[in-house]
């Protein structure tokens, strides 16, 4: 086969000279290399104080969206649950009653919406499947928890703050996400 690079070097089989067999010189050479590493820049990111920037396509925790008037967009159609390859999404639909028009955008809504963050692979297929723009992936990740139950996120964990009633919370959430 033809060499792909010009970096190939023949292995030298020459017997070692006396100085080489002493090893001391080579050890000192090696020690110089390690010593030079004392002055190199450390690539460490000290996590809680410093954070590494996410790439723009990072897919983190899910957020259930609301429209400008603070109504939930989700209609519990179940397309996200069907699209989910990890089967992490469970939901129960309910019909919107009279007087709930300010809570839900359409006449059907998700009474229960759960994502198991231990099963979720953060592929973003739910986001792609959603016809109502109701679910999308944010730039935060699931924090550690002591129990498995703690990783099952319900509606109260997923819903974005209401822009009407919780404007400050929304601003804060957006600040964290940005």
């Amino acid at each position, binding site marked *: 086969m033809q060499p792909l690079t010009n970096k190939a070097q023949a292995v030298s089989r020459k017997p070692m000279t006396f100085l080489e067999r002493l090893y001391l010189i080579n050890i000192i050479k090696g020690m110089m*290399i390690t010593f030079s590493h004392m002055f190199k820049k450390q690539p460490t990111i000290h996590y809680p104080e410093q954070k590494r920037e996410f790439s723009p396509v990072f897919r983190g925790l899910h957020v259930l969206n609301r429209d400008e008037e603070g109504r939930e967009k989700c209609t519990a159609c179940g397309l996200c649950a069907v699209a989910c390859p990890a089967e992490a999404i469970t939901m129960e639909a309910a019909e919107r009653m009279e007087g709930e028009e300010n809570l839900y955008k359409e006449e059907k809504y998700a009474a229960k919406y759960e994502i198991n963050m231990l099963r979720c692979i953060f592929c973003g297929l739910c986001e792609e499947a959603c016809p109502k723009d109701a679910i999308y992936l944010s730039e935060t990740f699931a924090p550690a928890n002591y129990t498995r139950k703690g990783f099952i996120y319900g509606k109260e964990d997923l819903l974005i703050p209401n822009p009407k009633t919780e404007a400050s919370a929304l601003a804060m959430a957006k600040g964290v996400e940005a």
Partner: protein
Amino acid sequence: MTILSFDWAFIIEKLIMIAIIVFASLGIALYTTFGERKVAAILQDRPGPSRAGPFGLLQPLADGLKLITKEEIIPSHADKWLFILGPGLAMTASLLTCAVIPWGTAIHVFGRTVELQIADINIGILYVFAVVSMGVYGIMIGGWASNNKFSLLSALRAASQAISYELAMGLALIGLLMTTGSLSLKTIVEAQVAGNWWNVVYQPLGFLIFFICAMAECNRTPFDLPEAENELNFGYHQEYSSMKLGFYLFAEYINMIMSSAIMASMYFGGYDLPFFDESTVAPNIAAMIGVGTLLIKIVLFIFLFMWIRWTIPRFRYDQLMSLGWKTMIPLALFNMLLTGAIILAKL
């Protein structure tokens, strides 16, 4: 203060000295563990322990606390008393060494002249050799009492390594003793303070052999075969837990400090600060400067130990033996003959 025709102040003075030196050694050993982790990290482009206290300075205390509060396990098939004796013996042997190290010239307090050395015995360096050999018993007994094949193998390795390298170490030292004419560490240091050059200039080969052998004696990489993780699972302290394990690890660091102190004293002038005339300052201050100088030399040696550890890999067992018997001992003998020949030629 003389009661029953005995100088009791002398006893008190020595007891205080012993307490200070033992606790200082333990304290330095504590921070050597921290230094080891920090040096290793910096040589590998890492920050090292940095969470406990400023710059991670409280890390050794956290480590110690962890070791003390851990559950203590004595294996059911272990020989209980020997199992307990092992780490104690290792620790005792390494702490005993500090008795003969001259930490400085004398200081004057309360009208007394206090030598900064616990005991200036005229066989000083011989005593060190005797005590260091005792340290092998700690490892041997620990490895044997664990009733574990890996521990036993590792203990055997440690013993044969110690014996092989002690020989070369002693032979390398004979060259030095021929030039100084004394076994007392104090006399050796004083001769270097008075003379023009440190002993390393007269005995470069001897120092090199001594240094390599000291590294082997301390079970430091590249000679850390007794605790070769990848072949022996951790070596002789595999079955140990809690503070018994801590004692073994600690003893290793104290050994390192003591061998650094001995090398500094014998080959690098001990408490002698070069290009500095001690008679220009008050004697007490001069003594303190001497102590500081020796400590700096010890720290430099410890850094060298660590630097080597994080540079070169471990020897294979047969390479270790062949280096010890086929290279170190003949070289040490050659050094001895050469020194003798030069001394004869000078006469």
